[in-house]
């Protein structure tokens, strides 16, 4: 029960901090002081206090977009185990729900974007649809591999199963998986080199361009949902990359928080040392990620 409460508390409060850490890391590389760690919280609070303008050409779909996106991500947050602690909700086959909760959120975000009738948002939706189609196989190959390794069909036992022992056994497969999943983590969260969350150039954006017409609290929800998504996918990734457990519940929570912050620093470093890919190159990298994940599946099935 305590663990469930901590789980929900962390899921609700910690995500924007990751963005703050990424921002600080990038600022350090650029030789700047950077915004405070808590800036993303201030931004979201500021947006929530604002009024909202809805275009008269939009329908209920436009308003539903941010809400569904946040709701689906929040449910997904309940399915992923954080660190060594099982998730509050766990059942056989929840991995499929996990994957398609994101798809449902994306569907509504894209529909809301198309609902505005703006050419920019149409372009953004087309890009998002293409790239998410190509990212999906990677996620499923990863789930198959993990399921095979643990013999389970639920995320909590699947992910907690990964330990140093498993690494020693099937290190090659997990290494491939980490490569593929890191690419998925970046593309799903619109990070450089796939998308630039800080750009103001509407013609080059993917995710940001779809939410151009949202303002005020609706936009605050979108920002928060984006941070939560990074947190949820990051928690998944941490299991693969840093599968440490001490056995002490409190220490494990601390370890989880530190691991997540480390992940944010790594993402910040990646964003600082490389430029964005040309959009036409993104599918190639996503296919490569799928192939990595497919090989890891092959290695554990053989």
């Amino acid at each position: 029960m305590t663990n469930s409460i901590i789980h929900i508390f962390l899921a609700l409060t910690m995500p924007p901090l990751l963005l703050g850490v990424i921002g600080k890391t990038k600022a350090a590389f650029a030789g700047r002081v950077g915004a405070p760690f808590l800036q993303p919280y201030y931004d979201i609070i500021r947006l929530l206090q604002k009024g909202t303008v809805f275009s008269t050409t939009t329908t209920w779909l436009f308003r539903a977009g941010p809400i569904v996106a946040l709701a689906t991500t929040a449910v997904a947050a309940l399915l992923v185990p954080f660190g060594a602690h099982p998730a509050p909700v766990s059942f056989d086959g929840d991995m499929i729900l996990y994957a398609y909760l994101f798809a449902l959120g994306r569907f509504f975000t894209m529909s809301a974007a198309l609902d505005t009738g703006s050419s920019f948002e149409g372009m953004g939706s087309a890009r998002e649809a293409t790239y998410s189609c190509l990212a999906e196989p990677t996620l499923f190959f990863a789930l198959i591999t993990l399921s095979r390794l643990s013999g389970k069909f639920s995320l909590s036992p699947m992910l907690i199963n990964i330990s140093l022992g498993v690494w020693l056994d099937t290190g090659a497969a997990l290494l491939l998986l980490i490569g593929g999943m890191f690419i998925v983590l970046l593309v799903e969260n619109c990070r450089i080199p796939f998308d630039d969350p800080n750009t103001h150039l509407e013609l080059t954006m993917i995710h940001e361009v779809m939410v151009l017409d949202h303002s005020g609290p609706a936009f605050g929800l979108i920002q928060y949902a984006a941070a939560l998504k990074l947190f949820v996918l990051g928690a998944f990734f941490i299991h693969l990359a840093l599968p440490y457990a001490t056995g002490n519940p409190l220490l494990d929570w601390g370890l989880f928080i530190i691991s997540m912050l480390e992940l944010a620093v790594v993402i910040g470093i990646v964003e600082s040392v490389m430029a964005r890919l040309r959009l036409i190159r993104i599918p190639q990298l996503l296919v490569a990620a799928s192939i990595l994940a497919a090989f890891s599946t092959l290695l554990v099935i053989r």
Partner: protein
Amino acid sequence: MSFGMKNFYNGTSFQRCEIPMPDNDMFFQSVLDAVSAGWRVCSYFGVPNAGGATLFCIMSARAGSGALGIIATTVGRSFPSLAAACPQLHLFEREIAEQCLTRPEGHPWFKPVRFQKPLCVGESFWSTTDGGGLLPAVMDFYHVEGDEVHEVAVGPVHAGVIEPGHFRFQCHGEEVFHLEISLGFQHRGIERALTGAPTPRTMHQIETIAGDTTVGHAQAYCMNMESLGGFFASPRAETVRGIALELERLANHTGDLGAIAGDVGYLPTASFCGRIRGDFLNMTALLCGSRFSRGLLRPGGIGYDCDASIADELHNRLQSAREDLTGAVNLLWDTPSVMARLEDVGIVTEKDAREIGLVGPAARACGLNRDVRRDHPFGIFRMSQIPVVTATTCDVAARTRLRWLEAERSLDFIEEQVRHLPRGSYLNQAKGIASGRCAVALTEGWRGEICHVALTDDRGCFERYKIVDPSFHNWNGLGLALRNQQISDFPLCNKSFNLSYCGFDL
């Protein structure tokens, strides 16, 4: 070969009656012959009169001779368009139609340029019947039909803090078939305001033609005033002007390098260059108190002297700025993901660049070896030359690398000049300007060739003061660079050209 034109050198003036005024056929034939012999059009404009307009064409001879040519003719309410045979004239002809109400017959792309009111009395060719007047970007855009073709309109209000301009893309998926650019939102009527000048405010108006090219335009104006008035700037003043021109180039090239890095999402260079640009602007402020060189150039010299302590300080600051800039820019070349993003994007072929008459870094990145500082030297550049840098790959990477190489040459130049400042006065007394003369001045601003033409009437005032900003030549290059490119590459191509909106809109 002079093609029936009067030949003269940059920064000189002559009696208006010396300008050859052949009949229309001879005039247009001369222009066509000169262009096919490799001459380039610097300025082509009309002075409206009762029955039509007098057209003046100023051309630059092939590199090496240093000569310029001028020829004129009087036309009625229409004149034959040469745009189809000579694409570099197309925007000039539209401008003549808009300003002088004389129609270029057979113009393949007859549309307004700035949506401005004509310089003479009469109705514009594009006036709406309801008398609403012309509004920028309200016109028929080129349109591609088809089920899978879609149109994207960007601007005039942009997401970033940039000037207003309207871009209309015809796209097939992510691929751009055609880009049409419509400007005019910043039209302030500078040329109209300069008719009847010079007045005490003229210098300030010139300094604001394009706010980031203050020195380039001010230099051209000062050259015209000096040749018309028969007075000179001292060598000391010419040197400081040269230093200011190169500081302006450095500041803007540095800003552009940072902006290009920012566009591809490469943060370190973007942040460093943003700061170093400020260092260069502050060096300009050291010379005259203004980060954008306002008040530095004055007819007859410079407004503020550059004493030994300022020169020393400038030299020291330059050393550290060079170090910082070298480090920041080398990061770009050392990062494969950045180079992969820049290479083979936004190509304008050398042939296209020559035909549409690109100038400045945009032209040199296409392998066109043209630079006013060498081809038509002015001021300090008559004594001390800067090597011209060219590139051959014609893409964004070429325009990026070219900026860095030019910045290096400019740093060398300033370092040398600042150590050997000539003695003497810094400001000679300006005199009134002569009547009935024509003066032409070309300078190489950081965007490229700036051309100012002054025609004085019999009272010694400007009857027409024609300004051509490099952006006027180059905006078409951006449109061509986008052909068959990804629409997502537009911001990057745009930054690599970094053209002026207000310099075009005047």
